[in-house]
């Protein structure tokens, strides 16, 4: 008999008052909630241990398992994941379906690797990833959740990176800051693509924005170090031209849609990244002095300008979390600048004064930003 029914019968028999019955019910619900959490946690640990143990046992006896069994089992899992995804492809169950599709995308790569192992195949790794990327694209297209697009983008970028790294003709273009320019161009291309798909596939747009912004942020951090250090190698010109085209296209797009703060942030970012290529030396006779104080401060100013403009754009878009993140990134860059300048006691004192003043300035700007700009969705 359930507790509610028992309490009803006790209340009817005047053994407990309605208030007491409510209190007992609330107490038992809270206790059972805690117990459920503990049971779930212990169960999850147990299942994880069993699954890991099974994988370890299979791995330990991997070579004793006939090739046909290995291929057959992986193929059945491949088909099974699709069959399950098909089974759950109904309205409210798309999360389960998408999880099976994500498992399928992982199994495709596992199957390619297994065929390569069983038949002792040789060949470039990018081919396997390119095949996996091609087979994960339809999955990303039908996915309701962005993780499927994340997998497709991840495979595609890994295949592209390996292809360029292994290609005799293209490998040379990665010298100097060439790989940084390629990554920045790829990030810009992903952001442009996300703009194009905005109405068609919102889940893919989220993934494209994540990857595009992530790539650009990583390149910006590395570019900032190029301005302050002796960067090895000279950047070939083609990637410089390519990234200039992408930066130009992105800036035109932002100007067209009148997103002033984002356009300013992007222009500063483009200056930081393309400038890093110049600092590293795009042309044989035009090599800057990276350790020069003027160059270092120019790089620092471009980074902070880009970060500040992104913070303003994020605040205007109503994202307090992004605004705070941009502010933190600027603060981190200021600390790095202080470390860069740390050489003598006089420089340490000067650096501390400058860092303190800069931190106060950032704090003041952050406060102004949050009081002046119409920040929407303050809880975000």
């Amino acid at each position, binding site marked *: 008999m359930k507790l509610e029914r028992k309490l009803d019968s006790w209340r009817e028999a005047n053994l407990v008052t309605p208030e007491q019955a409510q209190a007992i019910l609330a107490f038992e619900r809270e206790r059972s909630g805690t117990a459920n959490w503990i049971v779930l946690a212990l169960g999850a640990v147990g299942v994880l241990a069993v699954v890991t143990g099974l994988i370890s046992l299979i791995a330990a006896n991997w070579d004793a398992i006939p090739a046909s069994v290995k291929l057959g089992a992986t193929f059945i899992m491949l088909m099974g994941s*699709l069959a399950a995804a098909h089974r759950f492809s109904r309205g409210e169950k798309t999360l389960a379906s998408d999880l099976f599709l994500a498992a399928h995308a992982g199994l495709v790569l596992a199957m390619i690797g297994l065929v390569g192992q069983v038949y002792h195949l040789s060949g470039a790794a990018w081919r396997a990833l390119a095949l996996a990327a091609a087979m994960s694209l339809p999955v990303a297209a039908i996915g309701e959740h962005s993780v499927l697009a994340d997998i497709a983008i991840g495979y595609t970028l890994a295949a592209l990176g390996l292809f360029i790294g292994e290609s005799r003709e293209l490998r040379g273009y990665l010298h100097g800051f060439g790989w940084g320019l390629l990554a920045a161009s790829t990030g810009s291309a992903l952001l442009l693509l996300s703009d194009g798909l905005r109405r068609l596939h919102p889940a893919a747009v989220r993934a494209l924005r994540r990857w595009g912004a992530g790539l650009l942020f990583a390149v910006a951090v590395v570019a900032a170090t190029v301005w302050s250090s002796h960067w090895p190698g000279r950047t070939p010109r083609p990637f410089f031209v390519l990234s200039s085209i992408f930066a130009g296209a992105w800036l035109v797009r932002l100007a067209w849609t009148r997103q002033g703060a984002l356009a300013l942030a992007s222009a500063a970012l483009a200056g930081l990244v393309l400038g890093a290529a110049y600092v590293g030396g795009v042309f044989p006779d035009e090599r800057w002095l990276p350790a020069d104080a003027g160059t270092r401060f120019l790089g620092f100013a471009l980074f902070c300008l880009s970060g500040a403009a992104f913070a303003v754009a994020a605040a205007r878009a109503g994202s307090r979390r992004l605004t705070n993140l941009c502010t933190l990134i600027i603060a981190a860059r200021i600390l790095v600048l202080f470390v860069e300048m740390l050489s003598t006691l006089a420089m340490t004192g000067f650096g501390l004064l400058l860092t303190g003043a800069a931190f106060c300035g950032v704090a003041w700007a952050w406060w102004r930003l949050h009081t002046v700009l119409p920040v929407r969705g303050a809880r975000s």
Partner: protein
Amino acid sequence: MSDGRRKKVIVGLIVADLLVFGGWIGSLEAGLRHHAVKLPVEGFDPRDLLSGHYVRFRLVAEREAAALVPIDLRARSGPVSFCAESMDGLVHPVRMRAPGEACDLVLTGQVSPEGVRFGADRFYVDERRAREVAFVHAGPSTYLVATLDRAGGLHAVDLVIDGKSVSRK
């Protein structure tokens, strides 16, 4: 996307998986059904990667084939075929195959400025034998057992290092 269209795409993926992996495994199995030959190898290098333990080697035939390619063709990239002959039980390329020429044994690979590759440079081994293989030295009785399909493609069957089969259980 509607549930119906989503289901159609998933059915399409099932068909694609069947065609891609079924066709791939089928063609590899068909390649293994041909006559087996022995190709000498040199400079093997035991590797241990996440993909499994494998031995990396270089076919002597690749070095011999590179010497047979005219200098003007070495700068290009593309497929290339050689007529091969068995000498003392081991197969060696003897000349470039002319278009339409009939040869007893054909070896087909890819030529590039880096040389000729026949698409066989690794052999996966049992984890329990990986350490043993690492200490075996290459010698005259070190060779790859492979089948040659009609197009001259190589399909690795076994690797014999210093007279010992790597795939022996």
